[in-house]
């Protein structure tokens, strides 16, 4: 689905990525891990066509990414940004509907397929309670859910998510990971930059380990997140018992102003 070869990309005079070659297929849930500043966000932006690569090539379904055209690319690759930023006065509904932007005309008409994709995204993320509320009044976790619903509403075969679970409580982290995993199981390619190695080993199929702008290891979580890598790349000691797994014990959705 996505094949990248010899990628170099960066900002200003600096190359952040050097010589990256990766390949990813439909149905995979890939975790992109690595220390802060290792180039995870840059790789995600580059694979999504949001940052032009300086050398190398990216092919999506055997076509060069550069030849896809704006709309076509937007329909193929959905991107969930790291900062959960939007116009505070817009409602959850308005924001989720923006996910259909690659399909709408200049007057903003959303067709039947679009409405179905929106409804599905709202169901999956359980965002019904946030549809009428203004974005500025939502909590961090609620914003994350609305923005995930926005990204899912694109209904693209590829979803790139930049730290989708950062700064969320354990319950939200696990439910987000479950949603992303289910999306991959339904045939999408999901690539997510993640920091929580326990959740990575619990939920993902495949791990890309980045360090200083290069992919230094890849494979299944158990094979890659070994004592040596953790020491070399993350400068931490892996617990002998392995990573702990967590699961949710119930649902708890805040409705309006009451808890």
């Amino acid at each position, binding site marked *: 689905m996505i094949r990248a070869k010899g990628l170099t990309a960066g900002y200003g005079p600096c190359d952040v990525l050097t010589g990256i070659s990766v390949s990813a297929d439909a149905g995979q849930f890939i975790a992109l891990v690595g220390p802060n500043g290792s180039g995870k966000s840059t790789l995600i*932006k580059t694979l*999504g066509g*949001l940052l032009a690569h300086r050398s190398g090539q990216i092919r999506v379904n055997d076509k060069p990414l550069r030849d896809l055209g*704006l*709309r076509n*690319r*937007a*329909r193929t*690759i*959905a*991107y969930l*940004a790291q*900062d959960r*930023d*939007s*116009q505070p*006065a*817009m409602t959850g509904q*308005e*924001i989720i509907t*923006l*996910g259909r*932007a*690659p399909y*709408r005309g*200049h*007057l*903003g008409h959303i067709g039947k397929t679009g409405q179905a994709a929106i409804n599905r995204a709202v169901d999956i993320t359980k965002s019904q309670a946030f549809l009428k509320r203004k974005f500025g009044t939502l909590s961090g976790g609620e914003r994350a859910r609305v*923005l995930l619903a*926005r990204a899912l509403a*694109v209904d693209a075969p590829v979803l790139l998510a930049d730290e989708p679970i950062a700064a969320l409580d354990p319950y939200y982290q696990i439910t987000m990971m479950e949603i992303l995993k289910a999306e991959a199981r339904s045939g999408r390619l999901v690539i997510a930059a993640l920091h929580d190695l326990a959740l990575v080993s619990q939920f993902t199929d495949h791990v890309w380990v980045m360090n200083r702008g290069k992919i230094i290891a890849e494979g299944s979580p158990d094979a890659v997140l070994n004592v040596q890598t953790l020491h070399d790349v993350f400068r931490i000691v892996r617990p002998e018992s392995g990573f702990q797994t967590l699961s949710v014990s119930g649902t708890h959705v805040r409705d309006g102003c009451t808890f």
Partner: protein
Amino acid sequence: MKYYFILTSVCCIAAVLSLLTGTTPIPLPAALAALFGHGETAHILIMQELRLPRTLLAGCIGAGLGASGAALQGYTRNGLAAPGILGFSACASLGAVIALYSGLDQWVPVTALVGAAVGVILIMFMTGVRKGAATLVLAGVGLGALATALTGLIMNFAPNPWALSEIVYWMMGSLRNADMGALYICAPLTLPGLVCLIFIGQDLKTLSLGELTAQSLGVSVVRVQTLVVTGVALCVGSGVAVAGSIGFVGLFIPHILRMAIGADPAKLIGYSALGGAGFLICADTLARLMSGPGTTLYLGILTSLIGVPFFLWLAVREVRA
């Protein structure tokens, strides 16, 4: 749709009131007949040559200012953005002041438009097209400050008090020179400007998610920036060219409508165009009513005087809410 209907009705009522206002009282039936060329010659002359172009011009300029303000507030994602923020109104003013300084009064619209065009070229040259809203505003504020300083320099060296007072009055903004000629300059430029701005409404809405996410949804940042700059320059430049600088409309009309109707930047551009038109027609009518023989109340002063207290009231209400 409901709001379009309400705002259009407001504009129509304001236009009728404006057409009936003037030093010569003309009753409604006679005024309507005169508009279509029937009745007394004097009435026909007043209605067709003076009042109609003035009302249409006020609507045209107000629409351009309102839409520009809404588009810029959406594009910069900042409610404090006003049409003047890109510096085009200061550039157009500079162009006009150069003509007034040189005693070439009839060339004011042309030099003002040239000033706005030079402003566009400088902005494009300074920022390129893919730097994003923050760089554009920074360059625009700088450009505006430079044009204002040069305007001050010219006033400093004004050849005589008459030229200076002419410049000062012109800068206050008014529609006293409104005629069909002014309308023919303003309307053909404002309309394509409005089209540019309304055209990017949906993209601006998507941009509220941030530039990266908007790009991922297929928004071309280059196209949006080009259309914002072109649209604002056409609307603001043509307005300044025929009426001088009229402040505050572009800032507070979108602001009020956002609070009253909703934050969707796409809808807000159209609403603000209608709201700006209605407001400026009313303000001009009021300015004429308040001007007596020998004293003229300038439109630009009145718009600020009406706008500022209302704006402050809204701001205070927002703080206390």
